[in-house]
């Protein structure tokens, strides 16, 4: 029973996370400014990481942890680069 509840909640959570990503994607496309897009990409990364965690919980397996960890540690690198590009027009000076 609890397993089914957990399953349903996980499914719902995944759906919500995907919906969140959908919202961000909408902004990503709409903009209006580049900073909005970058902000949304960063947020999508985090949501994706959360999604990975839920997949891990669902599978009951720790093997998805690495993917989440990579986003947590290095996911910001690309958004930092994008942000720096906006600010300076150059990523590495």
């Amino acid at each position, binding site marked *: 029973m609890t397993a089914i509840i957990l399953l349903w909640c996980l499914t719902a959570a995944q759906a919500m996370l995907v919906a969140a990503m959908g919202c961000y994607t909408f902004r990503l*496309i709409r903009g209006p400014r580049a900073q909005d897009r970058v902000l*949304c*990409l960063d947020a999508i990364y985090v949501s994706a990481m959360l999604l990975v965690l839920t997949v891990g919980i669902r599978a009951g397996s720790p093997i*998805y942890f*690495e993917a989440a960890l*990579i986003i947590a540690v290095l*996911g910001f690198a690309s958004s930092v*680069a*994008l942000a720096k590009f906006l600010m300076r027009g150059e990523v590495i000076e």
Partner: protein
Amino acid sequence: MELYSLPLIIALPFVAGLAATLLPSDSRAPATWLAGATTLASLALTLSLYPSVHGGGIVRQRFEWIPSLGLDFALRMDGFAWIFAALVSGIGLLVVVYTRYYISPEDPVRRFHLFFLAFMGSMLGVVLAGNLILLVVFWELTSIFSFLLIGYWHHNQTARDGARMALTITAIGGLALLSGVLVIGHIVGSYDLDTVLASGNAIRNHDLYVPALLLILLGTLTKSAQFPFQFWLPNAMTAPTPVSAFLHSATMVKAGVFLMARLWPVLSGTPEWFLIVGLAGMTSLVLGAYLAIFQQDLKGLLAYSTISHLGLITLLLSLGSPLAAVAAIFHMLNHATFKASLFMAAGIIDHETGTRDLRRLSGLFRYMPITGTLAMVASAAMAGVPLLNGFLSKEMFFAEAVETHADSWLDTAAPYAAVLGSALAVTYSIRLIHSIFLGVPSESFPREPHEPPFWMRFPVMLLVVACLVVGIIPGLTIGPFLQVAVSSVLGAATPQYSLAVWHGFTLPLAMSAIALAVGAVLYLFAGDYLERAESPLLFGRIQGQHIFERTMVAISWRGARLVEQVFGTKRLQPQMRLLVAAAVAAAATPLFASGLGFGSYSSGHDVAFAGLWGIGMVCAVAAAQRAKFHRLAALVLLGGTGLVTCLSFVWLSAPDLAATQLLVEIVTTVLILLGLRWLPKRSEALREPSGPLARARHFRDLVIAVVVGAGMAAMSYAVMTRKPPDTIAHFFIERAYSEGGGRNVVNVILVDFRGFDTLGEITVLGTVALTVFALLRRFRPAQDSIERPEQQRVQLSYDEAEPDRGAGATPTEYLYVPSVIMQWMFPVVIVLAAYLFLRGHDAPGGGFTAGVAMAAGFVLQYMAGGTVWVEDRLRILPVRWIGGGLVLAALTGATSIFVGDAFLTSYFRYVGLPLIGKIPMASATIFDLGVFGLVVGATVLMLIAIAHQSIRRLRAARLEEERQLVEERRQWS
């Protein structure tokens, strides 16, 4: 001795030619001695073989070359070959002697002798070849060396043109001949001359007889300058005269008629043969003679006369009667003698007077009576005057022309053509004698003419004597040799013929008389006109040469360019379109042929997954739409698609892929951003093609994209819904742990089962990194990218304007706090990399993932502190990382070889360590360490190489400034 005579006859000239090139450059005399001696040796060897060929004997010599293809280095000398070999080497010897005096010391003598001797060797090869393919080999060599000889004085445009035309025509013919011979080989099953000569009936009755005949005749007629390919010959007159003497008497052009005579027993006697050969011969006979009378250039006259005489021979060969063949062979010999002597005489005249123009030459007999006499006799022989050799063969020709061989208009026309041709020959012969030697001596010779040195005149004399002797006592002189030659061609069909000078009052004699009379009368009336004629009557406009040139230009230049333009492109987009179309066609053909069905295999449904891909697809389409004007947006959207791809890997049980793709995603984004700085701002205001055509093109591309997308979707769906086949995967899963020592099967595949792939893959990465590095070392930014980005300019000017801020305050300030975190992440990334690396064999991760993570850590520092800041502190030597990583990986793999196992064999065992316990030690881990090293090096190298351009930009800007300064200064001074 006899055993090696044949190869020696051919080889000696070649060897001597090569030896001549080693002589000092100003060695006319030694070169002559060398050439003369070898030619003499060839001649002597040939003559020494007479006993063997006398009486129908054949000397054969065979060396294996490519036996399985029926190609042997087979040499074969029968009577016909013998007489030709003797002719070639004999006249060759005379030409060598003559050349000694003809060629000026300034000319490159060594080259002349090389080409000349090689040409002679090739001609001897044609004559002595016992295998048809070998014959073609030598045949082509004669074309090549004649090209070089004709173009000997290549500083003259005419020489170049003449040489090119000669080679073009004869090479076309040669290739046709090769095809013909191949067909013959197909019919007969052998290229061996003996076998082919014995298979006449099989050949003539084969379906492929006509194509074979056409191809072979194309070869022989071009070589012999027969109509309609006659035009190259007069242009070849730009060759040095000794060359002309050789090429147009005994060799080159004779090769064509030689081969026709050689294959006469096999090919002749059919209506096709008669028609083609006869028509070509008859036309050449008359046309050559007709054109000859109009020539103002002495050598031109002789050249057209050659065409005409070869036409005579060809016509004789076409008749298909043995007697005609005898006449043909006889005339080949006679023509060689008088034509060689005439050319040499022409050379003497040219040499002595400095001109060959018949209009300027006159009354030379007074200055050079001996040469004049010789030339007159030779011309008389050419005209067919009795008691000279030309008369005899012409008499035989008339006799055959009158005979009826095949009842057709051609046969009927033959006697008239014969008489007409002969009459014209008389005309131009008289014109030659009269115009040059008789009359009032010209005042306007460039040089005062003299008799030439004795040894220059000697060859002419010898040949003229031969004309006389043969003409007077043919039976005693040429008789036996002719008999040998003829019987070896005709074999059992050899007819009875008489070489007597006097056969009584016969029709041929009457024809001879008519020809002589008409020719003389014609000259009497038209001589003055001919002397003034600018171009031949009636044929002035139509010149084969021009038609040929135009055709060649049209086909080989304009046509080819058109084809290249219409059926090719240099633009990338059409090429891409074609590639895509080809792929679609390739995939669609079998799918449509058999129909693509889907299976029912399924892994369930998932709304979130569908939603995820909804996002992914929207991002992809949006990226495609934005990539033109909104590059950054497109990049961000691409990142979205990439992330969804990663998530799918997570979803679908591929954590390794997800981790790898994620890291690659991150690095790629940074990379493209680094590159984006060097692309110009793209505004929508830029004028782009629009209108219906552009829309149609867009629509077409859209259709292509949709079709390809649908196809890929269909194919993947078709496979995914099918039951999986019995794959090799189960093996990997079963043995990954027990034999590979790892629980992460994908990683074990990568470093062990298919470690070889990984080795290659990291090589690719390393190579690309080196390429990127190399290319950027020479990077030159576009003019509009040299400047700082706009943001930086604005910020810089702001900083400079503020009193309490220095240049660079803004970048320092805005990174002041964030950079702290970015720096503190550095050791974390190192730990992460170590973690990913060490866990790889049992869980997602591995050398590649760890390497990219590590590289990302470095790049983070570059972003935080800037290039200079980082490189002050860290000495990253990416190239060393690449090299070291590769060496480590490769050598780890190679160690197993020393144990005796195959390359890349992996070893693993559990090692008990104090405190730590049993841990698995796999050699694959060391291999993976190499992978790690390479990936770190390569990724860092690529990113940093681009990043460095920003520093180099400053230098570039400074250089540009300096350049402008220099420019200004130059303007002032």
